[in-house]
């Protein structure tokens, strides 16, 4: 296969010297990009580098302040997402954009349903087409179930199915794999390869660099909204790529410090929530990082939610430092020193319309108080401290979090919970959507916290992360704990075996 750009054909879709600002923030500065038919092109950059903004410009969501969008060599102006769609561009946005009240099938085909006579919708054909898509992706989702209540991962799958259903000539994917585990990712890549071979152009964003190397041919790097390079991936190493993105060499990605675990800090006994998980028992000791692995939908998130108290449990006990927690009471859990960095940052982690300062301040309402009134100075300095510590990239601390890039939003969530000085920290997908540089930083932080005596329970779908960081790995399968694997024995094989229910441990 020769590289498309060598053949002299015009790129299917291109950006030429595009700039875009949000107020004072210059999200894109004279960026150019060319997408050719039959190639998978990676877009790399730190959090806030402007990747999503670039994609939204291609998709007609944003109008560029300067520069042009070229479709098959011709300049075009997209007046809205509909225009881009009609031009054959399918987009998976970073945050799922589903209609919670509608069925999965309707979500996928909204606006483009197969029709019968007189323009009526052919519900049967829609159903069948959805089933076919699910099969192609190798997942089992009922086309008729409503989208509400789907896990983030399943939502992402539906988004992918939606994009595939277009048979588009350009497929743009903004971190489609952030919530997926290895098997789904492999499936997705299989489908993407097929599409590529059929002549589609694909633009792919991921903070998991190995994925970029796995599937992409060329990469465009952005830094602080500026174009750095567009080049073939052949012959590049991960370190090269990181250097382009970050502008310096990277620290070690998994800086796990060795600690001797102390007393039991979190003890979960026979916890059951009917229909969700059954009979979950485990301990987390001071200084320990315990990984919780499993396939999507295994129930890890649900366990975390119940332990923290946002959901009730039906049976069992949870103790923090020997203190029993009550079912369904996050405030008592917090008082006992428990913190939960939730999975869904937009819905659960952040109040999107509030400022960065106040979001971080939300967990400190009891501490930043003087004489019963808010102590704004204390609130601000607490928030500033943590925003700086986690290197959140923002214009002003009083800006609303919704203006931050995805990765920076995640950092705010972390800041918000670390600021409580927890004794037991549960993190659910803590580095989802976080760039490699920051990821190393978060890992270093978790490791440091553990060394300082915090008990950490880390849920992650990123298996290397689990293997790299955890002292012990717990594995869940369909609502039950199926294995407990010490660090020395934890490998991809042993964990996956337990996660898929094939464990013979």
């Amino acid at each position, binding site marked *: 296969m020769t590289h498309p750009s060598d053949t002299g054909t015009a790129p299917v879709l291109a950006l030429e010297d595009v700039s875009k600002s949000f107020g004072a923030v210059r999200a894109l500065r004279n960026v150019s990009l060319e997408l050719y038919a039959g190639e998978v092109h990676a877009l790399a950059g730190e959090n806030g580098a402007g990747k999503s903004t670039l994609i939204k410009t291609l998709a007609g969501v944003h109008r560029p302040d300067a520069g042009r969008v070229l479709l098959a060599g011709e300049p075009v102006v997209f007046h809205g997402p509909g225009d881009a769609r009609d031009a054959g561009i399918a987009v998976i946005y970073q945050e799922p954009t589903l209609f919670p009240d509608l069925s999965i099938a309707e979500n996928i085909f909204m606006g483009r349903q197969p029709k019968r006579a007189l323009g009526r919708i052919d519900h049967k054909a829609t159903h069948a087409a959805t089933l076919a898509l699910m099969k192609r992706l190798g997942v089992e989702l009922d086309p008729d*179930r409503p989208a509400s209540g789907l896990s983030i991962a399943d939502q992402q799958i539906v988004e992918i199915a939606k994009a595939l259903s277009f048979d588009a000539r350009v497929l743009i994917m903004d971190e489609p794999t952030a919530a997926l585990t290895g098997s789904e990712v492999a499936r997705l890549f299989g489908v993407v390869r097929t599409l590529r071979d059929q002549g589609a152009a694909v633009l792919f964003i991921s903070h998991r660099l190995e994925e970029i190397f796995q599937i992409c041919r060329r990469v465009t790097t952005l830094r602080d909204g500026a174009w750095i390079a567009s080049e073939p991936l052949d012959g590049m190493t991960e370190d090269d790529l990181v250097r382009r993105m970050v502008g310096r060499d990277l620290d070690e990605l998994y800086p796990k410090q060795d600690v001797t675990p102390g007393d039991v800090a979190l003890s979960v006994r026979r916890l059951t929530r009917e229909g969700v998980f059954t009979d979950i028992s485990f301990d987390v000791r001071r200084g320990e990082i315990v990984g919780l692995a499993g396939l999507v939908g295994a129930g890890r998130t649900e366990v975390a939610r119940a332990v923290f108290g946002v959901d009730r449990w039906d049976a069992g006990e949870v103790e923090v430092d020997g203190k029993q927690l009550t079912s369904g009471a996050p405030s008592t859990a917090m008082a006992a020193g428990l913190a939960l960095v939730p999975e869904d940052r937009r819905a659960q982690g952040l109040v999107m319309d509030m400022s960065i300062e106040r979001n971080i301040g939300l967990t400190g309402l009891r501490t930043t108080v003087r004489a019963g009134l808010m102590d704004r100075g204390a609130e601000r300095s607490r928030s500033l401290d943590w925003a700086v510590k986690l290197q959140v990239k923002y214009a002003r601390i009083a800006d609303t979090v919704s203006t931050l890039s995805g990765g920076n939003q995640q950092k705010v969530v972390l800041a918000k919970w670390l600021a409580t000085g927890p004794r037991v920290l549960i993190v659910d997908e803590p580095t989802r959507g976080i760039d490699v540089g920051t990821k190393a930083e978060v890992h270093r932080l978790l490791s440091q916290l553990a060394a300082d005596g915090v008990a950490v329970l880390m849920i992650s779908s990123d298996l290397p992360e689990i293997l790299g960081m955890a002292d012990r790995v717990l594995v869940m399968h369909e609502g039950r704990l199926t294995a407990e694997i010490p660090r020395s024995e934890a490998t991809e094989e042993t964990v996956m075996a337990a996660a898929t229910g094939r464990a013979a441990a």
Partner: protein
Amino acid sequence: MTVTTPHETTVAGVPKSSGTRLADRVFKMRELAILVVFLVMIAVTEAGNSQFLSEQGIKDLLLNATILVLVATGQSLVVITRNVDLSVGSTLGITAFAAGTYLQGGGNPVLAIVFAILLGIGCGLVNGLLVSLGQVPALVVTLGTLYIIRGADSIWVGSRQITAADLPGGFVDFGSGGISAVPWLALIALAVLVVVAYYLKQFGSGRELYALGSNPEAARLAGIPVRKRILAAYTVCGGLAGLAGAMYLARFGNVDSSTGNGYELTVVSAVVVGGVVFTGGSGSVYGAALGALLLTSINSVLPALGVSSVWVLAINGVLLLLAIAVDRVVAVRVATALKKKSALRKGTAATSGPAASLPQQDNSPSDPSGAEKGNTHA
């Protein structure tokens, strides 16, 4: 990276399972619950007063409901898009009077109805334009137009009134006539209802109303013409309020500047009782129509049972609360049942896998039956 294909064996066949059908039933049940409440109420009343379901009685029940059904149908369209139209009462009032004025001058009844609908559409357009183009909160805007239309109506109408004597006899007879117990007006309302429901279910633009109510931002990204759809919903809502105005005139023969005053709360109640959710994206016009039928019937049932009018208002309120509470409790119960069911399934699947490493699992309660298992894998 080695990747194993997961759970092909364990979860296969799950999607087609009873979950779907149950979920389906939950949705149907919401309307069913109201229907049952309604039927029980009617049965009890009939038992207490055999006149209640006489031909005249049934006719009265249907006639009382029609106007509210029409307005509630239009309102549902708007509410489904996560908006609201509080100005329907005012629109109804002004269109009724306009149609009356026209008829008073010797106009043609059919043209009068068309005229009322057009005026309603005009009001709906104004609301729709303000909400969709201005992108401002519907609640505030339509509360504003509620006052504006009502005020304009009062200024225009003054203390004039239109009575049955001013109207063509045929028009007034049409308002109370029908085929035996089924009034003409009810037939019109039913036709409108069926058409709107069919449109919502079978047409792309109808589904898009649900989509944009469910998640407006996603709707925009999906390329749905959001403003156009919202404008359309308001226009239809206004048009139906106009039609209802004309029917009000035919039915009561009697309009003045206060006609339709305070009607918006009744309409909103009907829509809410009917299970149309205020945060948009779900509910059906049949539900809203049943809600309307239930609410108006309460007002006929209580006097028919001889309940003193002193009690009517309180009973009305309590029944309204009961209706929404029961609806909610049923929905929650069914959802829990659904979850339990899928839990059983999951449990079956889990134990069907190889034995796990943790000791506690040995004492897990045994799963009920092999039949259940057979089902899931079928």
